[in-house]
């Protein structure tokens, strides 16, 4: 019963691929899992071929209760459900603002779902907004994929500064390297330097065509090509996370 947010301020770092694959792996060996697509682009929903329900919106999400339950969809995989994103999420901050304790709203509406699901994954949009603050508040762990570049390190600094500012623990954050390329010297050096720090995982998700192609076959690569390097990398990452968090 834990909530794991997959987050990075930057876009295009493999957040959605991570959320989709880890949620799938979680459902396979750890029990019932819910993936919440929080990104108005709806990429995670797209990967599972799930359209946003007609009557669903950010307002419904924030009302919670049956408004959420009615809009959860079963994926093609037993044990893995999904709350699809809606385009109205792009203005979710405005809707959030109407609530008292507006930073805690998401935590409040997700709470009742924890009795049904062993684990809830949040696929987050790339920005730092009131929604992000809600996500940090609701999540037990914040999983941050970063591409091993200097700019990524800068974004990490920004994230930590923000967590400090809103009074969230830094040790909620788990970092791993994503889209890493062995042939790039800078990638290798940066990873080596970083992996000594606490909260940085050792499993790496390499830059792989099979992951990019998920958009074509619209399934987690861990389900579609379980023997591929991509699938094995995600499995290794998931096992390390389970060990690290004692899940």
């Amino acid at each position, binding site marked *: 019963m834990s909530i794991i947010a997959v987050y990075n301020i930057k876009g295009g770092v493999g957040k959605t691929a991570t959320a989709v694959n880890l949620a799938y792996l979680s459902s396979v060996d750890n029990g019932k899992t819910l993936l919440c697509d929080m990104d108005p682009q709806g990429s995670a929903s797209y990967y*599972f*071929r*799930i359209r946003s*329900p007609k009557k669903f919106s950010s307002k419904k999400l924030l009302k919670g209760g049956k408004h959420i339950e009615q809009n*959860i*969809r*079963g*994926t*093609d995989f037993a044990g893995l459900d999904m709350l699809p994103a809606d385009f109205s999420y792009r203005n979710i901050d405005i809707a959030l603002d109407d609530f008292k304790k507006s930073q805690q709203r998401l935590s409040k509406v997700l709470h009742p779902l924890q009795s*049904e699901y062993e684990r809830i994954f949040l696929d987050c949009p790339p920005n730092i907004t009131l929604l992000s603050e809600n996500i940090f508040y609701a999540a037990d762990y914040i999983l941050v994929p970063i591409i091993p570049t200097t700019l990524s390190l800068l974004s990490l600094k920004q994230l930590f500064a923000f967590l400090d500012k809103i009074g969230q623990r830094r040790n909620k954050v788990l970092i791993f390297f994503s889209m890493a390329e062995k042939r790039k010297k800078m990638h290798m050096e940066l990873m080596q330097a970083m992996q000594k720090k606490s909260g940085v995982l050792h499993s790496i998700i390499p830059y792989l065509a099979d992951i990019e192609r998920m958009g074509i076959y619209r399934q987690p690569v861990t389900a579609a090509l379980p023997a591929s390097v991509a699938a094995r990398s995600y499995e290794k990452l998931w096992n390390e996370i389970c060990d690290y968090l004692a899940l």
Partner: protein
Amino acid sequence: MQGPSTDTWFMPDTLQTDALISALSGAFGSVDAPQYSATVVYADTFDWRLFRQGYILHCHGRAWTLYHGHNGEVTVQQAGPDLKRSCMSQDFPHGKLREMLEPLLGIRCLLPLTTISITGRQIRLLNRDEKTVVRIVFEEQRLAASGPVFRLVRLFAVRGYDEELTRVRRILAEKGVTRTASPLTGFEEGCKLAGRRPLDYSSKFTLELDAGCTAREAMVRIYRHLLTAIEKNIPGVLEDLDSEFLHDMRVAIRRTRSGLSLVKHVLPVAVVTSFKKDFAVLGRLTGPTRDLDVYLLQQHDYLARLPAALQPGMRSFFADLAIKRQDEQKKMVRALKAKKNKAILKSWKHYLASEDRKPAPLAGMAVNDLAGQIIFRRFKRVMKDGQALAAATPDEAVHALRIQCKKLRYTIEFFSSLYPEAGIQKVVRQLKKLQDILGVFNDLSVQQQMLRHTLEVLEPGTRHHLEQAAALGGLLHSLFGEQQELRNHFAEAFAQFSDPENTALFIDLFKTTGEAP
């Protein structure tokens, strides 16, 4: 929210699977999963402990699957032992399945119920995005050895796609798929073929009596019910499957004996005297094995009471007990198979099917009146004996009170169907609390006696016996301490049972004519 719902129907004999699939293909895309087939053995305890909790367990060789009976959702799938005649939860390797089975099965063993051959294929029905919206399963369940075949079609809903599910149901109905079936049809029919029916046995005494019947009619039904319980347990006792068969059989024997001695003048005196003697024989010849069972079941608890240094002695003591038990079990089986003892149950059965030539004085009395009188008499006795209960009461007197409580409990259970359920539940709950404390106390007392007796006859001189003696001494100390502690709670337990509210309830329920408590 609920889990995935399932709909199950019988496939009409004339309908081919492919015809149904092509009817569905007009509205949905589809993906066929590989066909599966397996021969599975369903297993449960004799008293349906898994089924009672909504679980179904089967094995396919050494692969075991535990799932929820109502929706077919798999709970755990894991390797386990080879189920031949029977197996216990401890025979499973450590893991989730064993963790779940241990509390469910307790000390009962799993028995094979029925063997079913299953073949099936699953088809995922897709919408325009090629998203799975409904799963449909065609399954044939064949009872072993050229038995009947059940052709089933099952729908598995995908959450959030209710409209699609409704559409599939409509198409099925148009094709004549209208007769609903249990997803466990094969299991249920297989049990029937093996002479079993889910929940057909429970160690609890439950019997619906007809309020208008006579005392004799009621008692004959009660005795028959108990006789059935004895007969049902005999095969398990003879095969020594688990210790509960013997326990349940002995309880049924004891209930019969209590009936014979507590309900007077309903059966002729000569009959009662003779069968009382006969059932006492059955009780006696099954006693020693049961006593040893009780100790062996305590093994874990006994070891936990001792420091590590004394445990080897305890283990060797239990190893000796286990050998002794095997001897007693063999003796008991021989005795139960003996002609004269088998004849007891036979002639009892015969008697229960016959009429008395000269009915006993109270045979024609209304059962309602009789029941109240008998229960209330037992209640008064417990009240009288219980008043004397205090911390200093000798063990024997505590034991005597315990027996009186048991008698009261049996008589309430015999006739409980004649009274309002809520009232019965309440008095039984109060009585059970008192019985529990007296029961534990008595067990501790008897166990100490046994240990003292063992010590008396233990020959000195060997290292082996020295270790055993030390362990027994340690255990005696621990049991004695617990027993003393319990004494402090006697007064409180009896005060609760005899409080004005509970007493008033007894009077209200059972008092018939001008008797005072």
